[in-house]
């Protein structure tokens, strides 16, 4: 019995490793071929070059798109995290009539195909008269970032003891000072994790920006345009490799922050 169990375990481990290879294979190809000295993305590799990175770095349209993406991402992350912070406090620390309906509505954008969100938002901004610009993209990104911010921050609020806030009020702090001196430091790791994750959600989004960005291309929209030109593909690879590595680092940091403090103290044992 134990022998069979451990053999099962070994097969599962082999499967898990194969699965990780499937998951990471395509992603790893981007950095690999981004240093390959050939316009064709094919084997055999023909030598090492940093030419594609240099070309990419010199591309002005790319700079503009990068700036657009960073602007939209920062504002969407900040905005959705502030909204999420207020909402998470209300939803975890008090009885709210219509709680599940609200949560359902917040999470709805995760279930609607992105193209439908994109066209619906396009109808909104044209009806209201907001020009297609970074502003319209920000509105869409606030919407798709909110469920992520709320999930991260609600988990954080659920993890801490509300009596700490009560104690602070009993000791005479007003509600603003209580928030500032008790609540905020306690949820801070969640806030940072939420900022990072929502930034990545905005940073990665193509579909919403595709419909709403007009002539102010964000980075994914710029990449989409570049894909039409085979000769520029190696440059896209270089850009893609850089994006993948930076976002992986941001995610690891965010996940670490998200769990920090909520993990059981098993490491100490």
């Amino acid at each position, binding site marked *: 019995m134990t022998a069979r169990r451990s053999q099962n375990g070994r097969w599962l481990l082999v499967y898990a490793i194969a699965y990780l290879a499937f998951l990471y294979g395509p992603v790893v190809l981007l950095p690999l071929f981004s240093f390959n000295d050939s316009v064709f*993305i094919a084997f055999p590799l023909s030598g090492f070059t940093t030419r594609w990175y240099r070309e990419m770095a010199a591309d002005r349209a790319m700079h503009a798109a990068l700036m657009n993406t960073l602007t939209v991402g920062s504002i969407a992350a900040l905005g959705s995290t502030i909204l999420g912070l207020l909402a998470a406090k209300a939803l975890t620390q008090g009885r709210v009539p219509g709680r599940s309906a609200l949560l359902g509505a917040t999470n709805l954008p995760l279930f609607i195909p992105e193209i439908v969100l994109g066209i619906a938002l396009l109808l909104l901004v044209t009806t209201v008269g907001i020009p297609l610009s970074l502003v319209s993209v920000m*509105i869409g990104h606030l919407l798709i970032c909110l469920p992520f911010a709320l999930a991260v921050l609600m988990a954080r609020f659920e993890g801490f003891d509300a009596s700490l806030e009560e104690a602070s009020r009993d000791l005479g702090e007003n509600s603003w000072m209580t928030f500032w001196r008790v609540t905020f430091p306690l949820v801070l790791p969640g806030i940072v994790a939420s900022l990072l994750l929502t930034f990545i959600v905005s940073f990665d989004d*193509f579909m919403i920006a595709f*419909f709403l960005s007009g002539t102010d291309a964000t980075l994914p929209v710029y990449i989409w345009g570049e894909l039409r030109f085979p000769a520029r593909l190696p440059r896209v690879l270089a850009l893609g490799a850089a994006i993948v590595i930076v976002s*992986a680092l941001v*995610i690891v940091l965010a996940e670490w922050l998200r769990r920090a403090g909520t993990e059981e103290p098993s490491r100490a044992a």
Partner: protein
Amino acid sequence: MSVAEADRDIEAPGKLARLFQRSEALRQYALLSPSILLLAFALTAPLALLILYSFWAQSGLELRHELTLEQYEAVLSEPFYRDLFLRSVGISALVTLVTVALAYPMAYFVAFRVKRRKFVWLVLLSIPFWTSYLLRVFAWKVILGFNGVINSGLMSLGVISQPLEFLLYNPTAVVITLAHTYAAFAILPIYVSLEKIDRSLLEAAADLGDGPVRRFLRVTLPLSLPGVLGAAVLIFVPTTGDYVTPTLVGGADGVMIANLIQVQFGRVNNWPLGAALALASMAAVGVLAVSVIQAIRLATARIK
């Protein structure tokens, strides 16, 4: 001046503030109001407009603001739309099956076999989900292409002498790419439901003489069904409306409903028809998903 009057005088300026202090619900709603405003403006209003547009009509460059069922009649009567919709649903169903089947053993491994540092595995499995969707699809285009990684790799190894043409620009390429890009949507819900299973139930089944296979089929699998169904919905519904994957790797045979919708908002410039197509396919997908889930629930309820 009576005592009551004096009380009222004191209360009057801070009345609202006091009501606010006393009513918990009001206070919570004040905190929720920015989010509610955002949802009303950026979710409810756009969806309402989408519905409204689907009942309008486009004649030339003019948008006619009279209610009509024209668009829905076109959606239902045009065989091309129906075929495209059925193909999208077929592709998504296949993607859902493949993704869930591939992810289940992985989730099982993390839930039951990994004893220490589960967190590291979970982060490893979720990183690709967070890295640019567009770039992952692009990577598959590069891998499967005529002069792509697989073909050039196999040719330089001498396995094949001609590039394989069946790799890219067909529904199979769409299925492979989507199964890869949606992997995390399957792993995480299944993992959560497996992790929740009370381990003593598994011991009980083993003590009562169930072998590992029977135990898995009679205890583990049914108890993880909520996670499996959750994963299926999270994959099936968004993939039916996927635009990037069919456009980059689908070719002519891999075109899906989202491509048709996009064209109405782009080249063809018939927004009402695009709105009706989007709503009709979303409604159909929703009904389909709910009825399949109900059917599975009924079927498994009988087994238990």
